[in-house]
């Protein structure tokens, strides 16, 4: 049963490089600790060539002008780890989370889907690169041999069955201990003691360790020593502990210096969106909701010095999409338009972006289907128009179950919604023209003169809507919502007015509660 291991060497540096790919060609050192005792925690190969090594103080590292120093970011490491699991899950449903930098895949039955084992190793490498991770991939007949090969050999490695000991033999014994492992302190001490002992014995590689007599090794190093020898032989057998990778797609970035302008924010958002979209694509998912949380810098003033008041404020924006989509450029535009109309109002110190996963929509176009706007384009267009006229002033209509004037509400425009109901209504629709009312918003306040209790003349500030009443029908009284605060009661007339341009038909309303007269609209 073949297993594959994806190992990300120098994981803290890889997490930073995933967030800032432009640093790949430079020397990068990661430091951690509280000032002024910050120490270099991890370095990349270029930094190592510059003489920078873990354990150096930040002040010492800063002497190298070509070096880029970054603080250790657990948020970025968490994102990189999630991306690693997504990469593994995109190839196999059985994945073991073997540490922050390591994932093991069960490849049983995968050949029929992805090709031969070398092809699978190549595909995994490419997928990891797409997700921004420089990983090593190794395939072997047991999980531990795959892990050791991934730690020891760069790029893709496929170990033929039965050749594990031979291939692993050249690797140094240090590969038996995971780098940057977050295990128990006692375990680390024990591993360090074993390595020291082997070093004193002159055992430098796994071949030498495998050649040691088992009984003598057991007497001197105990069960752990025997386990190490089994690993070195590539003969350790264990059951894979499969985990279900959580469907959480979030990325975050903490900023050293607060961002004030939207342009640099868009640059960072673009990067986060690309990472999230790559992860979603690896899992064959789309998203229907984006949640952006910006942590804003608070200004502590003399009047508010309590810790709760100077804590950073959070600014939340949610973009809901009518259909599942996966287009980082579109998402960026939508976020930009949203932030343009709702600016955060304070410098940003942390950006957190989360995508709610959704299954991709399954739609098949047809030759005879009526034209319909592309959902992605439409969403962007609607967002732009909302920026022009206001969010509440663009959308489709929904009539409310009321006789109140303006008994409707605006809702999101989603073409194709309720298609079945529409078809039924269309088939039953009468084809003759229906006289339409054209509304004045707000209703036009008018003065009405009465003669013998009858409507005689309408006067308004609008020249077109005044004149003598030629004909009238009404009143029709209606009222409602008397049990609410916004009760209403009104009398309605349909009137024909003679004005300078001719005769026009209007709807006249008398507000029985407010007492005013209004022309609500014209029959047009």
């Amino acid at each position: 049963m073949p297993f594959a291991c994806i190992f990300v060497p120098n994981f803290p540096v890889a997490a930073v490089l995933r967030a800032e790919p432009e640093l790949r060609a430079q020397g990068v050192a990661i430091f951690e600790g509280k000032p002024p005792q910050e120490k270099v925690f991890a370095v990349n190969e270029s930094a190592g060539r510059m003489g920078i090594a873990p354990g150096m103080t930040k002040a010492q590292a800063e002497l190298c002008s070509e070096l880029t120093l970054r603080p250790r970011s657990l948020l970025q490491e968490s994102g990189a780890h999630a991306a690693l699991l997504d990469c593994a899950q995109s190839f196999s449903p059985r994945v073991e989370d073997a540490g922050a930098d390591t994932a093991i895949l069960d490849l049983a039955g995968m050949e029929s889907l992805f090709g031969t084992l070398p092809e699978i190793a190549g595909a995994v490498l490419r997928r990891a690169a797409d997700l921004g991770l420089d990983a090593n991939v190794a395939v072997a007949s047991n999980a531990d041999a795959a892990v050791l090969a991934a730690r020891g050999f760069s790029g893709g490695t496929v170990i033929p069955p039965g050749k594990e000991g031979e291939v692993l033999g050249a690797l140094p014994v240090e590969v038996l201990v995971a780098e940057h492992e977050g295990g128990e302190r006692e375990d680390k001490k024990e591993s360090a003691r074993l390595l020291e002992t082997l070093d004193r014995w002159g055992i430098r590689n796994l071949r030498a360790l495998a050649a040691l007599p088992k009984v003598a090794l057991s007497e001197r190093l105990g069960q752990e020593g025997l386990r190490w020898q089994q690993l070195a032989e590539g003969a350790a057998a264990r059951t894979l502990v499969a985990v279900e990778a959580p469907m959480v797609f979030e990325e975050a970035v903490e900023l050293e210096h607060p961002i004030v302008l939207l342009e640099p924010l868009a640059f960072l958002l673009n990067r986060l969106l690309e990472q999230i979209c790559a992860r979603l694509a690896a899992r064959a998912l789309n998203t229907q909701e984006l949640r952006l949380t910006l942590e804003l810098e608070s200004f502590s003033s003399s009047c508010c010095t309590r810790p709760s008041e100077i804590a950073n404020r959070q600014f939340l924006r949610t973009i809901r999409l009518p259909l599942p989509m996966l287009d980082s450029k579109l998402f960026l535009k939508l976020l930009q338009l949203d932030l343009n109309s709702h600016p955060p109002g304070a410098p940003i110190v942390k950006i957190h972006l989360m995508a709610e996963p959704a299954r991709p929509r399954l739609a098949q176009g047809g030759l005879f289907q009526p034209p319909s706007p592309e959902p992605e384009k439409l969403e962007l267009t609607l967002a732009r128009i909302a920026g022009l006229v206001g969010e509440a002033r663009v959308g489709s209509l929904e009539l409310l179950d009321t006789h109140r004037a303006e008994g409707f509400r605006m809702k999101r425009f989603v073409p194709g919604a309720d298609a079945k109901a529409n078809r039924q209504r269309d088939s039953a629709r009468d084809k003759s023209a229906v006289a339409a009312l054209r509304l004045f918003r707000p209703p036009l306040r008018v003065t009405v003169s009465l003669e013998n209790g009858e409507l005689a003349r309408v006067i308004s500030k609008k020249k077109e809507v005044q004149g003598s009443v030629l004909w009238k029908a009404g009143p029709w009284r209606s009222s409602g919502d008397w049990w609410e605060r916004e009760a209403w009661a009104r009398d309605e007339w349909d009137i024909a007015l003679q004005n300078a341009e001719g005769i026009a038909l209007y709807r006249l309303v008398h507000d029985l509660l407010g007492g005013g007269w209004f022309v609500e609209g014209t029959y047009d």
Partner: protein
Amino acid sequence: MSSAVVSTSAAQGRPFAFEVEDEAEVCPQPGGGELFGEGRPPQRVVPGALVSGTFSGAFKDARLASVTPASRLAARAAPEMVGSGIAAMDALTGGLPRGCLTEICGPASSGRTTLLLAALAAATGRGECCVVVDASDALDPQSAADAGVALERLLWVRCGESSPQKGLEQMLRATDLLLESGGFGLIALDFGDLPPQTARHIPLTTWFRFRRAVEHTPTVLLAVEGQSIAGSCSSLLIKLGRQKHRVKEFANPVAPAHAQLLTEVEITAELVQSRLERKPVGSAEITFASRTAWAG
């Protein structure tokens, strides 16, 4: 890419300019090479470069000979016509043309909105998505529902919250975005209540842009306005006249007002202009009735 090449007329000794179509082309030798003389290679014209020589009118004639006369040009394919939702209107105009601008103009209370809602009902009935870009926020949702518009397929853009001028600006920008987005069966621009002096501020170039954007698309672009403002950009211009109304009365000839009911409104429509056919149309007029929603 075209560029002007200036040469010297041998006959008049004055410079003249003509257009070079291609980036680099070989000048023809009209009259069997008499222009350059025998054995002389053809001259290569580089765009933007000044070329001097002894050109004659024959060169120009040769270029003109390659132009297809208008009488031999293939007739432009007639646009697809779709129903306006009112049979009488379809009989008058043949329907509403796709990929063209249609203007419906008339004074207040002349039936413009009735016509607009009928067209929207027909388009949404065909399963198309439609837009109303409303300059004065005048659409009545109840009337739209009564006219049979599938409200789920209707996008309503409400402009003009602050002022007519601002509303017009919002409307034109929103229309640009919608035309660019594409995919709509009908885009209606409702300038109905906009003061004529404001509506006339729309530059003709805007209408040309709209016409170009909608060309070769399945979208019907419909403008509802008080007076025609798109000029030569509209393919169809329908003018509506003042309407007459009919009421239902009880048997009593002096029935009180509450015993009367507005049941039907008569609309007069005139086809003023149509650029869909190569020959000019004669003015044609029809009258049709629209019933009120409560008339049954």
